[in-house]
């Protein structure tokens, strides 16, 4: 008996005696870094995650429109100034406090999340055995996306750290801010390379609709040339887009947006959203909708009262861009200006709408070329191409106002609520003047999130 018991206990204990690998456990339901980034398929999924960063709250879903539309003279915070409304109001009024401006902090953070994902692709793709043309395309996509995030960051914050490789947590602190000019220099080089590596829109399969193309890289490159003040260099790039990449102005302005018109022939690059509970829907459709129109319409980014007046009689762009009233659920007509470019209905409530956000489109390219060329017949022709499509007559040198003012005004209505206004005001040197005219005391740069200054005391804050 004694022997048996001893034998059994010994047996049990030996069965459980555990080798070294007993404590070597790998994640079961999460992939880990050392096992990934091995195949071309891995790299495609990796670059897809960088696109995903475009959908974040800190990027095109929220912060970018707050910073580039609400901040500008196009829109304001909306009537309800509690919660998010209060956050918007301080940004709208240039009185945001660094520590509390969460929307600005998330813009900064999320843009770098996107940049980080691009850097991982760029740092890890070279040794992988795969189709070289596909490899080049993925690298081109990474360079384009990274440049797009950097462009937004630089416009918003000016001096920012410029990171071009996958870095470790410890290395992170070694990076200090570099001047905007230096960032633009890098972006120009990157985008040139990107344009070379990327495919034309026509070369992609339908399933890849939404990826960056040669046209995307070129359009962003031209915009950065303009932003950096190098109009001369922008001209050939813009001409190349017009001649080589096959974009057109859609006959109907209204058809540029809408779920049925995604990735159309005018669209050069757009952020793809898809509702349906897969965490890929947009929140702004809901946020832009007026109060009570949808069950949770938040009515932010409200067009300023003068916005409606900027559209000349017969301008087809007005109805496609905004409304000034709507019929309430009780049948009453409610006076309230609101944006309609991104739809007003959602399939699921709470920020899960289907509408895409167009970042770059052909009309912008035409107007950029006009800007790069300066006052000239060709420039007026380009502007008039855009106006004709809107159902308006031509303008020329005899039209009152400076060329720059006329161009800026045209850009304002053509590209209304597409995150162009604040960068345009800065690029045209009009931000101070125009915002002051509104009784505001404008800051040209957003404040660097306090978080970053707290982590790295060598960072310099932008002046108020």
């Amino acid at each position, binding site marked *: 008996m004694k022997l048996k018991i001893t034998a059994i206990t010994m047996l049990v204990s030996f069965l459980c005696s555990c080798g070294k690998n007993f404590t070597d456990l790998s994640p079961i339901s999460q992939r880990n870094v*050392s096992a990934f980034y091995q195949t071309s398929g891995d790299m495609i999924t990796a670059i897809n995650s960088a696109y995903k960063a475009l959908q974040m709250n800190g990027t095109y879903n929220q912060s970018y429109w707050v910073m580039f539309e609400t901040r500008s003279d196009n829109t304001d915070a909306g009537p309800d100034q509690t919660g998010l409304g209060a956050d918007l109001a301080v940004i709208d009024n240039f009185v945001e406090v660094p520590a509390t401006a969460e929307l600005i902090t998330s813009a900064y953070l999320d843009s*770098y999340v996107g940049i980080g994902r691009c850097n991982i692709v760029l740092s890890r793709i070279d040794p992988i055995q795969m189709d070289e043309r596909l490899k080049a395309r993925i690298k081109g996509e990474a360079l384009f996306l990274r440049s797009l995030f950097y462009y937004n960051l630089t416009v918003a914050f000016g001096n920012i750290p410029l990171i071009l490789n996958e870095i470790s947590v410890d290395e992170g602190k070694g990076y200090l801010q570099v001047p905007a000019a230096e960032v633009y220099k890098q972006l120009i080089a990157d985008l040139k390379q990107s344009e070379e590596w990327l495919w034309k829109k026509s070369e992609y399969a339908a399933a890849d609709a939404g990826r960056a193309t040669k046209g995307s890289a070129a359009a962003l490159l031209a915009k950065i040339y303009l932003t950096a003040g190098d109009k001369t260099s922008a001209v050939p790039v813009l001409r190349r887009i017009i001649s080589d990449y096959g974009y057109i102005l859609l006959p109907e302005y209204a058809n540029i947006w809408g779920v049925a018109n995604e990735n159309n022939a005018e669209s050069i690059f757009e952020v793809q959203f898809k509702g349906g509970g*897969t965490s*890929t829907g947009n929140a702004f459709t809901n946020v832009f909708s007026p109060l009570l129109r949808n069950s*949770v319409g938040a009515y932010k980014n409200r067009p300023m009262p003068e916005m409606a007046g900027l559209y000349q009689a017969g301008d087809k762009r007005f109805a496609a861009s905004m409304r000034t009233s709507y019929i309430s659920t009780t049948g009453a007509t409610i006076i309230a200006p609101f944006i309609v470019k991104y739809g007003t209905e959602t399939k699921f409530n709470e920020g899960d709408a289907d509408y895409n956000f167009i970042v770059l489109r052909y009309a912008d390219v035409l107007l950029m070329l006009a800007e790069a060329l300066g006052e000239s017949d060709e420039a007026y022709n380009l502007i008039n191409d855009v106006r004709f499509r809107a159902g308006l007559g031509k303008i020329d040198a005899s039209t009152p106002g400076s060329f720059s003012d006329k161009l800026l005004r045209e850009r304002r209505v053509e590209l209304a609520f597409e995150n162009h206004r604040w960068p345009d005001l800065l690029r045209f040197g009009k931000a101070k003047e125009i915002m002051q005219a509104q009784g505001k005391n404008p800051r040209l740069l957003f404040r660097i999130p306090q978080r970053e200054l707290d982590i790295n005391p060598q960072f310099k804050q932008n002046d108020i």
Partner: protein
Amino acid sequence: MSAFLRLLGILLILGLVRPLSNAQTYVYAKLNYDSAKKTGHEQKKYLRDVLAELETAYKVSIMFDSKLVGKITVPEEKIKKYETLDAAFLNLLDAGKIRVKKLSGDFYVLQKAGGTESPQVSPVLAAMPAEGNKTELVNASRMMVSGTVTDAATGEALPGVSVRVKGGTKGAGTDVNGKYKFDVPANSVLVFTYIGYKGREVQVNSRAVVDVALEKDENNSLNEVVVVGYGTQQRRDITGSVGSVTAKNIKDIAVTSFENAIQGQIAGVQVQEPSGEPGAATTIRVRGVGSISAGNEPLYVIDGFPVSKNVDPGVQGDVARRTTAFRPPPANPLGTISPNDIESVEVLKDASAAAIYGSRGSNGVIIITTKKGKKGEGRPVVGFDAYYGTQTVAREVDLMNAAEYADYVKNAKNNTYLQDIPGANINDPNSVRYTKTTNGTYFIPDDFVNLTGTDTDWQDLIFKTAPVQNYNVSLSGGSDKLSYYTSGGYYNQDGIIDNSGFERFSFRVNLEAEPVKKLKVGFGLNPSFTNTARNSAGAPYFADPPGAVYSAIVHSPTVSPFLPDGSINQTDNQSHLFTENGTGANMTAANNPLAILKYIHDDLKQFRTFGNIFAEYELFDGLKYKLYTGIDVNNYSRSFYREKAFLDRGALTGDPYGQSNSSLNTNWLVENTLSYKKTISDDHMISAVAGYSAQKDHIGANQILAQNYPDDLVQTISGGQVTGGTSTEEEWSLVSLLARANYAYKDKYLVTATIRSDRSSRFGEGHKTGVFPSFSVGWRLSEEPFLKKITALNDLKIRASWGETGNFLIPNYAAIGLLNPYNYVLGNVVVNGIAPSTPNNKNLTWEKNTQTDIGLDIGFLRNRISASVDWYRKITSDLLLNVQVPAAVGFGTLNPLQNIGEVENKGLEVSLSSRNLTGKFTWSTDLNFSTNKNEVLKLGSSGDPILSTGGAGIRHITRIGDPIGSYYGYVVEGIYQSMEEIAAAPKDELAPASRPGDFRFKDVNGDGKINASDRTVTGNYQPKYTWGITNTLGYKGVSLSFLFQGVEGAEVLNLTRRHMGNGEGATNSYALWTERWISPEQPGNGTIPRADRLTDTHGNNNRPSSFQVEDASYIRLRNVTVAYTLPPKMLSKRFSSARLYLSGTNLFTSTDYLGYNPEVNNQSTATGVQGEDYGAYPLSRNFSLGLNITF
């Protein structure tokens, strides 16, 4: 069951065969009292009879050799009341023949003068039936009975135990081997009594052998057996710091779980109830907070099985849409354990005690021992415990009524209007204001201009009186070979807020048997089922789902709770908040709390089973081998549904969504230990234990989400469209070697050394193994000859310990760079995207905790007063910190763990126990007091502070020189009274347009301007000291006990002030805001600034500041119990004891804190952001009537 009884019977029969020993017996004084009366002597009494009277009069036991006392008689005149027992002895005894020796306490032996000193070696005094009893000897129903009396906890034989026949005259004492033998009536009941132990009565039932185990009397703390890791020790031999609470200290406090019951009862153990939600987890901090990122919960060891309190939201399946920061405290995973089944709770506080648990010991170890059957108990004991009580909200907050609120709103809006709008006049009606601005902020809602008379008390509407009931039946008993304890319990607590409650069905079986000699086997099984209704009570009003409590207190009293048709008003209550054209008045939309409670459903079910089985075999004298295996299976399932009928914050249509979660957690353990215990030549006591253990944990959790329910008819996932889901699995494993040795020389010099080596899967390659040593010494000065003379002092021990422990409470794969899916849309189809979510850190390893403890135990006046004092210093190094990394690294706000930093906790603990009055009227006091000072010593290489984001942005800082997670913000210096004062003050860069009545913030760094660099530490959640005091009074069968408990020097970050104290008037506010600054002539109470609807753009009074930090010290009457134990004569034969009690819990709390609960802690599991109040479920006050019966 019948099989069980049969088995029991067989074992009982087997147990009867036992060699008889030569009984050595003392005679007790009482023996012949009856027979003496028969002698009828009037002038004289037998000495033995007189001694018996002395026993009764002085409450002592007097033992003597019956031959010695023989037929000595005492003259009547000497029989009187003597001042002292000694005087009585002096007068009654012939000093030449008899001498008295005091053995211990109340125990005396009469010996032949000049005879041997020690009763242990004195000649055997045979049982001496007196003359009159001779006839009994020939009675046929009599039999010889023998047996061994042992200590129930240690199994050691007890010499000198009195054994007598109940109601009769016969008796005996046990010999040095604890054995006794004498003849008794076959159907008699034996009464066993022994100093320092609880008496017992055992039915003979014609058994020849009656072995009995006696339990220590808890009042004698020195002999108290304390459960330490992997064994037990007597309190007197302990060199570490161990706190303990036994069943009697927790049985009357009507709470869900034992943790709530030990609140305020152990020095250095802070139990916090951050939420009053039924079934919510408490937080327990042993000697402060040692860690920021790894957990701070102690390790729980339940009947030898170590479990961590896993409250990972993935396991309980928290509502996916709810932001982490707004998650209410999790349900208590240990809520399945019925407090009725708990025998004792021990807390291992210092490193010496906790090091045996190595990498899991640094937060302290809580050892839970459940009730076991008593060996040799004889007949089964049935216990029945029940109580029924009612609960009400312990404290309501003081809010504005409709008139006060309307006044406040008008004040706020007018101030803003006058400041911002040129040409504004305070008397402008809305119609005029519309012409001057389109911003509703400046409009005053009609409801506030002309009050309708509605004045709703929302708190009254949501709080109700709720019942709580508890029933527990247990059956226990045992023979000398087998003991059993089995119980079934039912507990049901309704919440004081509708739709919340906690229900538990618990079962337990504990068996122990000695099937063959030297082999002991045991088995324990505890399956329990709980059902927690978790309404959406504790969250901010704007969370999703919103919190009912916060919604109730921000809700305007001008709104009616119901519509005229009697339905819940969700539509007519927001009219003044905004209008559809956006010209609304910009008030904050909150939900009708009644709608939240009615339309949001959240049920959490838990099924948990603890099982263990062990076998222990004595290989040879003193050396035992034990194999212990255990399993813990924990299953949660949760279903959540937000009805379509719920209109969130003024929405016109509902947005129904549902969620279903389930998780299964299995954890197994195998442990092999060898233990050895030996006493060498009486002076050297050695005990040691060594072991090897392996433990592995696996969690699998699933979640399904659905939306778009067409109606509310089907509220499960099947009723809607499935829109998402996840399934995750995780594991951890731990392999350990452990050893401990104790050595005591002459019971005076005590040494303990412990070592444990742990290898854990959670840490980085090459850093998986940690070694944790500890060492402690004790010196019982009271055993030294020079102190033995001081009779008042009966115990004095000094102790010192040093040791290292670790903290392994980090995520399972924190050392590995993980990737997460980040899917995008291409070609209008969702495509896979994958990117890192956490960085790699191969160097990740344990937090090391080095602790020094110096302690003193002292006992006076036969231990009527005993005290313990401990001083400790605990340094956590290699502190795991979620380091804020620059955004540029690309991980967003994710802050990866790194081993940087050092934190110190040091403090003093005092426990005092005093039996102030003994005798008929008893009064005892137990007091504990502890201080703790927490200070960050080091943070990474550069020492940069760590800022943490809580429920509302960055409001916490961990920096060198301050406690972990201190509150961080601006400091309010006062209130500006004039424009001149504003102009003269340092420029406040955050206040674009301050006006008189706004806060004057402090220029902390003195640079002449106020900006982000002026933020500083404004308080901390950790108390400076905590205390508890219990007084118990008794008279005959009635007892009264009350427990006061308190916390000093803790602060709460009251985030409800962000809305209810921001001066904007967009929500209802605390009544205190009626004392706000109105004008220089009406400056209010001097602490509350002016009302201003847009303070963000003016004085910015609502920025994170000291104004939101409140003193949360409190004194609480935690429990009062009045109990009546029925005297035996009132009991029918069927009952052996019965006790009735009335108990009240949380009767009264005195605090300056404005909110419901000064212990509130919204994110109880996130250490960096402790102490926020963002609308929590309040605590309840509870009265209950209870009954304990055994039969």
